[in-house]
């Protein structure tokens, strides 16, 4: 408890930090980190994660990781829940659509899970193809690989079913505004430490690929270049100094 009090004081935290002596609650919740051997000094930690719980105590969403070094930011959780976050965004216009893109966090440390978001608005009367569409180029967000950045899963929304009568075919499309969330992480490994050494920010580059069609014509596939800049901060290694 003195450690928590010290941490709260240093960080200006006013919300409750709860001490789970002997990891009793962690065990009761079934969250004891079993990747750690019981002889390891780290034994007793939970799997890191977050529950969002309504007023009645019912879990409405949850975000868990298996490595204790890794952590979702609040913003990256919010965008996956469809919420807006107040961060600088870039507007991009392409053929037959427009998009707004941003990184959920302006600063990250090794192990931080953040996301890049692409909010796409197809032009009126047009649609683009969703993942799984055969014979058409589905939308894709391709992030250029680089040392220090781990490209994690991307989340696409549920597609609309589009019936194209001339060919008597059903295809999954997006014809209304939709969001793609691509999760990224600053590499927490030693390779990441090496790659990110001395950097104060990184630029992540990618392309948004799509093919738009209206009810008569399919237009040429497009590729829009996108970039996001994220500040790099060092890990906080300050130890507690309980009074």
């Amino acid at each position: 408890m003195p450690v928590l009090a010290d941490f709260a004081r240093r960080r200006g935290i006013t919300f409750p930090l709860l001490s789970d002596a002997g990891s009793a609650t962690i065990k009761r919740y079934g969250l004891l980190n079993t990747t750690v051997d019981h002889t390891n000094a780290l034994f007793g930690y939970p799997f890191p994660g977050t529950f969002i719980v309504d007023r009645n105590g019912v879990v409405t969403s949850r975000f868990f990781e298996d490595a204790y070094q890794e952590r979702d930011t609040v913003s990256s959780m919010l965008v996956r829940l469809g919420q807006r976050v107040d961060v600088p965004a870039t507007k991009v216009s392409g053929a037959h659509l427009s998009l707004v893109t941003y990184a959920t966090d302006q600063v990250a440390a090794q192990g931080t899970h953040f996301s890049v978001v692409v909010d796409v608005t197809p032009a009126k009367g047009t649609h683009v193809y969703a993942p799984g569409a055969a014979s058409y180029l589905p939308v894709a967000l391709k992030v250029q690989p680089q040392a220090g950045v781990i490209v994690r899963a991307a989340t696409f929304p549920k597609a609309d079913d589009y019936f194209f009568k001339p060919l008597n075919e059903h295809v999954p499309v997006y014809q209304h505004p939709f969001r793609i969330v691509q999760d990224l992480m600053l590499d927490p490994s030693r390779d990441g430490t090496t790659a990110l050494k001395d950097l104060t920010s990184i630029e992540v580059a990618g392309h948004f690929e799509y093919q738009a069609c209206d009810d008569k014509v399919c237009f040429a596939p497009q590729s829009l270049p996108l970039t996001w800049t994220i500040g790099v901060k060092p890990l906080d290694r300050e130890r507690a100094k309980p009074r």
Partner: protein
Amino acid sequence: MTLQPFVERARTSALVALAATLFTFATSVGAARLSLLEGQAASVNVDALGPKVGERLPPFSLNDQTGKQQTFESIAGPKGAMIVFFRSADW
């Protein structure tokens, strides 16, 4: 470092963190990290652990940083709570 994002963005609603029992490390940060990564060879499906979406959170009663005993009812705001499980407030 682990709590930083939550600290910076704690404005949303009641935010609670359950800390594991705190340990003092004799090992260096690097050595501690390496040993856990080695231990992770057997992957765990974390989505299968703990209360699921739609389930009620099991009750808890724990002391906070001021020594006050807290339960879900005492920490929840009008919209509920965000409950963060984290490893430690001390390296």
